[in-house]
């Protein structure tokens, strides 16, 4: 099976095929013969040559996967043709176009630092959300103008709730 992986912003072609010994995985022009077994709770034990790895896997949405190799965390996306098309369509590769600023976790809006129409710099604080007794300032992902503002001081927000849009 042929996948397109996105890791560290780069696209890599990864092809995995069942083989006698286990699996053959081609990454670009590098080929790995891998003996893989599943472990309980989303984990794999891989033996490549004599190297032994424990890989803990956390599947996310739309092909997003977090892979813990030994003690190194890798965030990547593993996409088949269909997912890849969707992924490209969504155009999230760049920060062109309007960018949503969402509540990254459930909490309470304690301060709104901008108003609609404000020009903001990349990294400028927009909204302060409090959760677990900590105040967390949400910054602008890009330089631009506040074209939408949903955040209201004192309001409780759920994870993923749209707080503002920067265009």
């Amino acid at each position, binding site marked *: 099976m042929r996948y397109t992986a996105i890791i560290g912003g780069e696209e890599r072609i990864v092809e995995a095929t*069942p083989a006698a010994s286990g699996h053959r995985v081609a990454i670009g022009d590098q080929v790995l013969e891998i003996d893989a077994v599943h472990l309980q709770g989303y984990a794999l034990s891989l033996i490549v040559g004599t190297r032994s790895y424990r890989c803990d896997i*956390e599947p996310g949405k739309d092909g997003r996967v977090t892979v813990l190799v030994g*003690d190194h965390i890798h965030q990547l996306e593993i996409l088949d043709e269909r997912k890849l098309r969707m992924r490209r369509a969504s155009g999230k590769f760049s920060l062109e176009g309007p960018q949503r600023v969402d509540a*990254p976790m459930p909490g309470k809006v304690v301060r709104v630092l901008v108003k609609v129409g404000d020009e903001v710099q990349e990294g400028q604080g927009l909204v302060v959300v409090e959760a677990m007794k900590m105040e967390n300032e949400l910054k602008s992902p890009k330089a631009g103008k506040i074209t939408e503002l949903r955040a209201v001081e004192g309001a409780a927000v759920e994870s993923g709730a749209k707080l503002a849009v920067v265009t």
Partner: protein
Amino acid sequence: MAIRKILIANRGEIAVRVARTCKEMGIPTVAIYSDADRSALHVRSCDEAVRVGPPPSRESYLVIDAVIAACKETGADAVHPGYGFLSENAQFARACAKAGITFIGPPPEAMEEMGEKTRARRKATEAGVPVVPGLKEPIPQGGEAAAKDFARSIGYPIMLKAAAGGGGKGMRLVADPKDFDSGLATAQREALGAFGDGRVYIEKAISRPRHIEIQVFADSHGNCIWLGERECSVQRRHQKVIEETPSAIVTPELRAEMGRVAVNAAKAVRYLGAGTCEFLVDGNTRTFYFLEMNTRLQVEHPVTELCTGLDLVRWQIEVAAGGRLPWTQDEVIKNLRGHAIEARLYAEDPSKNFLPSPGTILDLRLADGPGVRNDCGVESGSEVPRYYDPMIGKLAVWARTRDEAIARLGRALRETVVKGITTNTAYLRRVLDLEEFRKGDYDTGLLERAKDRLLHRERTGDEEIALAAAAIWQLEQDQRAALRQPVSAEEESGWARAGRLQALRRSR
């Protein structure tokens, strides 16, 4: 009087930890829980459990009447408050006394005299304990201008601290007069939010300061001893992250001197049980200033237990029951052994400015083997609610030398895996790798100064392995999908079932 049943007025790892010692002592335990904690580990770690209210702590864990009522309902004749919540609330201690319940902690008077920082400083000064120059009184309403002048008079940088504070909440360092107003506003807001008391006071900020605290213990027969220090200078926003004992800069002489001063402070308020005197120590001159006394068990007490071999919770219970301290000061000194380090596991995302990451722990794998101790408030399938402190547990190690202890903690952190939520384990490992930490040459500014080194994610050689693992994983998913047996994280995990069942229950 003997203690026959203990209600643990807390949650999370400390509630579990206290329950363990009670089990070893054969004392039945009662847990309390908010609606957010019905499925929490501490509830099933106790013999009984009583609901005390809705999720927000001010409506549950902080409601004195509810806790007292829970004691009466279950016939608990003693309360262990843990840390935080009501542990330093004199009013609660009085309510317990009034209800004939033994409060496992100091008398309310001692709490009041030490609990509020400004009074504590006065008391300490009286007892001849050196304190950091600063304004002894909280800033009154409308006194902002005068406070600003005073700040300029002792010279910047200054520190703004919550009068009722602790644990770094409602603390702000102000380096420049122009930031005074904003800093004050934030400090007051956080103080109000955290302690229901917005008053803050001003203090001169010492440069290259080390936060070193002394564990003291007193019984009701006039005995009071110290149990060595804890080096707590590895802090982020005044929140302790890694603690160790002994401290790299504390000589036996300095230890004895700080210990003597701490014991004096405790005696000055007729202290009882476990307490901690926090000192600010000048990294260069090693002069120390009394900061505050925490009139409760500290989060980081395990490092003291590891190097003394004591069970401090057992001592708290025995002393509260009128027992005598089994050790003299000399026995303490004779028994101090090796080196211990504790790392706090937080449900937070260091790469997102340490944003708390509540959620469900899909899989929890703790470290084991020689010299490793886990104190955890969660297990696989546990929910980390968004209402409370994001600390999910503590990983402590002991070894004969500091170098071996650091190596051991590194090994143990590599064995520790928390899936489903983001935690600071990788960040903690990077702290251990800091040269300043390895040398023991650091102060409370370490983490701030090393910020970039700590967050930079090194590119590792095993990226191909990660890709291969993901591909093999995905391949098998696709194969199974083809066989029409879709498996989503949802269906797989017990917590999802739990969620469904609870939903079911509510819906009825």
